[in-house]
């Protein structure tokens, strides 16, 4: 709770809203004890007094009633009615939504049909019908406003509930023997409550507006009682001659609704964990570069990553996802980069073409050189011209990485046309050829498919075709087969292998699977906690791993044909990259670790063909 308030008030606009709203609330709560005139006593002789006249701070209205007094009493009424309507609508609507969402099936169907029907009205029609039936009056306006908002809550909360009800912890609760009511109250409700609060805080202002609106039309509060809406309604006829009678209540409504909206946004931001982590910011067109230190000198490799450092800056924390990685690849060579989750292998791959999402990603050091030219310091346009043209990517999940609303052929054409001025007819023909190249049967027809019409394996072939579109020099494949079934994976891997041989491509292949690198890659680099711990030719690394981490990781991987057995494990967990220990990052899990491992920096020893970052390697290199 205190954490929530802290978070809420860190948002300055929300704090401003809270201050204004509290001031209004205090004022209206004190209204009965303040020395105000009776709001309903008319004095026709004093009508339309201007503001700041004696005895009438805000002037008087068309019947000579004191505006300040009427304003405070009216605000009191408007707030009370709006908040009551919000509470009623939220309670009834959420209850309906939770029941419909949790039970699903027919109950859900019937309830949601009814809700849809109510939402098929423009809301004011429903409110008007209700008021027409019940007759004008503030209470009836309250009922009408609450009623028209019930479907809103029901639909909103149902959506959230359906998502939660499908979560595994609900199944787990059922298996723990809990009944439906208990699950709704103890498992669902605590998770839905923040959403209800968010929905309420963002609609309370709206409901105050709506009740004011009905009163403005003369359908809400009836004279002589006034709320803000009816004050405006009565003042309308004197708008041109005596505008102050309209301006005063209008500004009050505006202040209240605006402060509630500001506060509501703040509440939403503070309660929504997605927003809290700052995730809802859009990534820029290229990764932010704040390079400190020397830029390494060029080499004659096709693509060279030199002492690359990429960090994530989240709040005050700095995650060193890539802490100084050097890799290089030559034409026609396949380099495997292997590591567990959080080792920095994907971030390394994405840094090459500035595709790490920023915020929060920042490249803080090193260089990436394509044919000697530094890409990290390059301008957006020069980087864009190489993206997909000289260096292309294949990503992990082909369903989410292809645009869902464009036909496959168009996405392939676009890859070509982003770099070459070729008419669409030609690029379409080229797209068909590309699909044939990746062995998609019936390519002429497939080119007109949308991604969702293809199977996972076919989609990944399209992903590969897209990478090949401009005949690049380097392909960076970021776990391209992880999302695929094993029989499909085998085919995709053999396709990549053939393409690489036929076209002399350089491939950087990111994976966590030793079996895959063993079959595909010429060289391997093993990453741990953002650094390369071992590098060398594939057979040498796999058969004689030099780093204790590599050796033990290989031992963990069960291999087909080994029979039923206990498996080797590495105790403990990899260190967090925002809190790396001094010395070797693996030391705390390593049986061979000595004092020296835990203090000084451990350097990568060896040459480009075989290197290890360890004081006590398993094999001499």
């Amino acid at each position, binding site marked *: 709770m205190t954490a929530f308030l802290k978070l809420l008030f860190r948002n300055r606009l929300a704090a401003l809203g809270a201050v204004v709203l509290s001031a209004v609330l205090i004022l209206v709560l004190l209204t009965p004890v303040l020395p105000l005139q009776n709001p309903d006593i008319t004095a026709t002789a004093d009508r339309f007094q201007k503001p700041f006249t004696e005895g009438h701070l805000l002037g008087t209205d068309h019947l000579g009633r004191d505006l300040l007094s009427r304003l405070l009493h009216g605000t009191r009424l408007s707030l009370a009615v709006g908040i009551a309507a919000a509470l009623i609508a939220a309670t009834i609507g959420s209850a309906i939504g939770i029941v419909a969402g949790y039970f699903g099936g027919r109950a859900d169907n019937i309830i949601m049909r009814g809700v849809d029907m109510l939402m098929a009205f423009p809301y004011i029609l429903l409110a008007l019908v209700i008021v027409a039936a019940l007759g004008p009056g503030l209470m009836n306006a309250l009922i009408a406003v609450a009623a028209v908002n019930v479907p809103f809550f029901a639909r909103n909360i149902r959506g959230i509930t359906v998502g939660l009800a499908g979560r595994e912890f609900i199944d787990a609760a059922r298996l723990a023997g809990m009944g439906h009511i208990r699950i709704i109250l103890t498992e669902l409700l605590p998770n839905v409550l923040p959403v209800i609060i968010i929905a309420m805080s963002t609609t309370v202002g709206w409901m105050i507006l709506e009740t004011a609106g009905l009163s403005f039309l003369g359908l809400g509060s009836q004279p002589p009682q006034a709320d803000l809406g009816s004050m405006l309604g009565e003042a309308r006829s004197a708008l041109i001659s005596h505008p102050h009678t309209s301006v005063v209540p209008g500004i009050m409504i505006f202040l209240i609704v605006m402060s509630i909206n500001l506060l509501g946004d703040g509440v939403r931001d503070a309660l929504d964990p997605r927003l809290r982590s700052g995730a809802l*910011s859009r990534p820029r067109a290229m990764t932010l570069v704040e390079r400190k230190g020397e830029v390494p000198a060029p080499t004659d490799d096709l693509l060279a990553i030199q002492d690359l450092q990429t960090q994530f800056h989240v709040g005050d924390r700095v995650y060193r996802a890539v802490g100084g990685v050097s890799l290089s690849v030559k034409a026609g060579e396949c380099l495997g980069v292997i590591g567990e989750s959080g080792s920095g292998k994907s971030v390394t791959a994405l840094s090459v073409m500035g595709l790490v999402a920023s915020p929060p990603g920042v490249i803080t050091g090193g260089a990436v050189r394509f044919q000697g030219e530094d890409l990290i310091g390059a301008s957006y346009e020069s980087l864009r011209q190489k993206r997909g043209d000289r260096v292309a990517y294949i*990503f992990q999940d082909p369903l989410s990485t292809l645009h869902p609303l464009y036909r496959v052929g168009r996405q392939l054409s676009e890859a070509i046309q982003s770099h070459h001025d070729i008419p669409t007819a030609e690029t379409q023909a080229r797209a068909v050829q590309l699909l044939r190249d990746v062995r998609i049967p019936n390519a002429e027809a497939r080119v007109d498919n949308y991604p969702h019409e293809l199977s996972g394996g076919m989609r990944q072939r399209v992903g590969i075709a897209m990478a090949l579109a401009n005949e690049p020099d380097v392909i960076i494949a970021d776990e391209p087969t992880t999302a695929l079934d094993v029989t499909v994976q085998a085919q995709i891997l053999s396709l990549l292998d053939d393409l690489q041989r036929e076209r002399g491509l350089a491939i950087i292949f990111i994976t966590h699977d030793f079996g895959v690198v063993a079959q595909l890659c010429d060289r391997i680099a093993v990453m741990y906690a953002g650094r390369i711990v071992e590098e060398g030719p594939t057979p040498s690394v796999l058969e004689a791993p030099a780093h204790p981490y590599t050796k033990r990781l290989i031992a963990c991987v069960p291999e087909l044909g080994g029979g039923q057995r206990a498996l080797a494990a590495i105790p403990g967990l990899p260190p967090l990259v925002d809190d790396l220990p001094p010395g070797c990052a693996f030391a705390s899990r390593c049986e061979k670790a000595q004092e020296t491992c835990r203090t000084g920096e451990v350097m990568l020893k060896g040459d480009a063909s075989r290197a290890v970052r360890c004081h006590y390697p398993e094999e001499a290199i």
Partner: protein
Amino acid sequence: MGGYIVKRLVSAVPVLLGITIIVFLIMSLIPGDPATAILGSYATPENMEKLNRDLGLDKPVITRYFIWITNMLTGDFGRSYSLNRPVIDEVLERFNATLILAGTAFVLCSVLGILAGVVSAARQYGVADKIITFVVLIGISVPAFFLGMMMILLFAVNLRWLPVSGMYAIYGGGDLPDLLRHLIMPALALAAVATGVIARLSRSAMLEVLRQDFIRTARAKGVPERRVIMGHALRAAMVSIIPVLGIQAGFVLSGAVYIEIVFQWPGVGRMLVDAILKRDLLLVQGGVVFVAACYVLFNIAVDVAQSLLDPRIKT
């Protein structure tokens, strides 16, 4: 596609039936005797009996509903007692005016809202984003009727740029420029809130989409940033923006009631409020059902637009 439209039209039938039932049920909940309410102090037993017969109130509820709905299907919405003319004639005439006002406002809020949202998202945390966010916040916090009144004070009374109210000038008006001059203020006042809501939603939809993997793919293949935003991202964001346009159309129609009162616009909203205050129930019923039916049809159009945009929707 044709099949899909037919399917959606057929599925609208139960919704329309439901709407008539809801309206009819609520209206028959009216406490007391409608005849008394209508006739007020003129109520004599003979008058009341005659009126009850005229209104069909002597029959059971279900029979009355069926009579009402079959009559409506033949275009007979009954007769307004306060205006002494057929309800349908009055509604059609008034709805025409509302359509001009609400339609203009709807186009305005869709275009401005989406544009503001896209700019805001593409320049997140930049100056443009901050200005738009601020204006939007004010837009969604001002009641439309108050905004309308302030516009009248400023543009009509003080600056004398635009007419105070009405749809046409009383003398010598009636042409299109005259209509446009009268339309500007009410349309803007009506569009304000919806523009704000659509802008906010478009902004968050764009931000959500820009984080998706397929945007990274587009960038990875070298698509220029302008095309990434205005092509790839906006197209995908439209999938979540379009349904909101449908909902906002309902809000624009609702807001039209206030705006019509403030600007003396001869639309259906003003007619409904007058009818309620005069307890002209047939006019209320007829007007509500007619407008609701139009809104249902509009939402079918929105669904069809959505299915054209998103091939994943089964048609």
